[in-house]
C-alpha cells in the first residue's frame, strides 16, 4: 500500500477549532428542530380549534394557544409520542444496530488470536486517552468489506463494531485511528443525537401526513377562515420531508467532521486516519461488485448507514433506496481529508 502512503501531504490541523465550529452547527440544528416541532404542534392545534370555534379568526386562536388560554393538546400529544419512542429506541439500540449481521463479542478472555487481542488493546488504549469511565463492548462483524461503527445511548452502554475485513487490511496505527474516530462519536454523544434526529423527523413526517389527509378530506365541511391554513398544510406536506432530510444530513456530516477532529485530538497525529480513509476508499473501488453483493445480502443495512465510518452509498453502492441515498450521510472523502489538513495528491 505504499502508493497510498505517498499520495498525500499532511499539515498540522487545529482540531480544537474544528470541534468548536461543529459544536455550534449542531446547536443550531437542534434549535431549529425544536422550533419546527413546536410550530407544527401549534399548527395542528390551530387547525383543530378552528373547526370548533369557527367564528374566531386564526390569529386569535393562535394567540390563545401560545398564552395557554387553550390547551395545546396536539403539541402535548406529539411531544409525549416523541419521548416514548425515543425511550424505546434508546433502550434496545445496540440490538437494533447489529441486526442482520454475523457478529461476536470480543473480550480479553475470548480473544482467539493476536489480532483480536490487538483490537481490544487498541480500544483500551484509546479509552485511557479519551478519559472514558467505561470500556465499550467490542464486536467483530464477519464481513469482507471495510467498515466500523459505534453505538449506544450513553458512555456506559456504548459499543463499537468493526468488520473483519477492516481488521485484516489495516495496520496497528490505522486501526487505532479508526477506533479513535468511533470512540470520538461516543465521547461527543453523537449516537444519541443522530438517533434523536431521525426518530423526531420520522414522527414529524407522520404528524404532517395525518394533518394533510384530515385537512384535505374534510375540505367540503371547511370554514372560510380555514382556506389559508389548508394551503399552508399542503405546502408543508411537501416541504417538510426535504427540510428534515437536509437537516439530519447536515447534522450527521457535522458530527463526522467532529469525530475526525476528535481522532486527531486523541492520537495527536492526522496521518493514520488519512491513510486509513484512503485505503478504505481504494479498497471499495477495487472490490465494488463483491462488496455491493455482500451489503445487499446483509439485512437491515440502512440502520447502520449513518453510523458507519464510511458510507457504502458513497462509492456507488446503492443498498438503501430512499430519498436519503440522493445525499450522502458523510462528507466527501476529499473534504474530510482537507479538514484533516491532508491534501490528496493523486489527481
Amino acid at each position: 500500500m505504499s502508493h497510498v502512503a505517498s499520495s498525500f501531504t499532511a499539515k498540522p490541523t487545529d482540531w480544537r477549532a474544528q470541534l468548536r465550529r461543529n459544536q455550534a452547527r449542531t446547536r443550531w440544528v437542534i434549535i431549529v428542530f425544536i422550533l419546527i416541532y413546536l410550530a407544527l404542534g401549534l399548527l395542528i392545534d390551530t387547525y383543530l380549534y378552528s373547526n370548533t370555534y369557527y367564528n374566531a379568526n386564526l390569529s386569535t386562536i393562535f394567540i390563545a394557544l401560545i398564552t395557554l388560554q387553550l390547551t395545546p393538546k396536539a403539541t402535548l400529544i406529539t411531544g409525549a409520542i416523541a419521548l416514548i419512542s425515543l425511550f424505546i429506541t434508546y433502550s434496545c439500540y445496540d440490538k437494533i444496530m447489529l441486526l442482520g449481521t454475523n457478529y461476536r463479542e470480543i473480550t480479553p478472555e475470548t480473544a482467539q488470536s493476536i489480532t483480536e487481542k490487538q483490537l481490544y488493546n487498541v480500544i483500551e488504549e484509546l479509552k485511557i486517552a479519551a478519559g472514558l469511565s467505561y470500556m465499550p463492548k467490542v464486536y467483530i462483524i464477519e464481513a469482507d468489506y471495510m467498515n466500523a461503527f459505534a453505538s449506544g445511548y450513553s458512555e456506559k452502554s456504548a459499543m463499537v463494531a468493526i468488520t473483519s475485513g477492516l481488521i485484516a487490511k489495516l495496520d496497528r496505527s490505522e486501526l487505532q485511528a479508526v477506533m479513535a474516530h468511533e470512540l470520538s462519536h461516543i465521547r461527543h454523544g453523537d449516537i444519541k443525537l443522530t438517533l434523536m434526529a431521525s426518530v423526531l423527523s420520522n414522527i414529524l413526517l407522520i404528524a404532517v401526513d395525518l394533518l394533510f389527509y384530515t385537512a384535505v378530506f374534510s375540505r367540503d365541511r371547511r370554514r372560510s377562515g380555514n382556506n389559508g391554513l389548508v394551503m399552508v398544510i399542503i405546502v408543508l406536506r411537501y416541504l417538510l420531508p426535504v427540510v428534515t432530510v437536509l437537516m439530519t444530513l447536515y447534522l450527521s456530516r457535522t458530527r463526522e467532521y467532529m469525530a475526525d477532529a476528535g481522532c486527531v485530538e486523541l492520537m495527536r497525529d492526522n496521518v493514520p486516519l488519512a491513510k486509513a480513509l484512503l485505503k478504505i476508499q481504494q479498497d471499495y473501488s477495487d472490490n465494488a461488485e463483491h462488496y455491493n453483493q455482500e451489503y445487499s445480502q446483509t439485512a437491515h443495512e440502512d440502520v447502520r448507514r449513518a453510523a458507519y465510518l464510511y458510507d457504502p452509498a458513497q462509492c456507488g453502492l446503492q443498498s438503501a433506496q430512499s430519498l436519503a441515498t440522493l445525499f450522502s450521510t458523510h462528507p466527501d472523502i476529499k473534504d474530510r481529508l482537507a479538514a484533516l489538513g491532508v491534501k490528496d495528491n493523486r489527481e
Partner: protein
Amino acid sequence: MSILFILIVIIAAVFLWFVATYNKLIRLIEAVNNNNKQIDIQLDRRFKVFESLINVVKSYMDYEKTTLKDVVALRNQAQQAQAAGDQQQRIAAENEISKIASNINLVFEQYPDLKANQNALQLQEEIVNTENKLAYAKQAYNDSIEQYNATKKSFFEAMVVNLAKDKLDKNFVYWNLPEEQIAAKEAYTVKL
C-alpha cells in the same frame, strides 16, 4: 415592589451561576487528580508486565538478567522519589524504564527465530500496548490540566476562583521531560 422582585431574581441568577461555576471547577480538579492516578496505575501495570516479560525472554539471552535488575532498581528509585514527593526525580526514573522498553523491542528484531515465535509476537504487542497506555494516560493528564487551567483563568470564572482560592486554585505541573533530556532527544539521530 417590582424593582425588589427584579433584584431578587438577579441575585438568585448570580448565585446559581456561582454555584455552577464552583462545581464545574471542582469537577475539573478531580478529573486532573484521577488522571494523575491513572498514570500511577499504568506505571504499576508496566512494571508487572515487564517483570514477567523479561523472565520469559531470559532464556534467549543472558543480556536480560542485567536488564531485569535495572528495571527493578529504576522502579525502586521512582517509588522512593514518589514517596519523597520529588516529581522530577520520579519522572526521570520512569523515563529510563521507557528506554529499556524500546531496547527490548530492538532485541526482538535481532533474533529472527524469536521474532517468528508466536509467544514473542504476543509479548511485543504487550510492550506496544503498555507503552501506548502509559503515553495516553500522560496525554489525558495533561489535557485535563489544560482544560482546568483554561477555565480557571477565563474572565468570569477567575472571579469565582478568587473568592475561594484555597479550594479552587490549584497549581498542577504538566507531565514533561526535564530540559537536559529534551536537548538530548532533539539531538538524537538514528544511526544505520
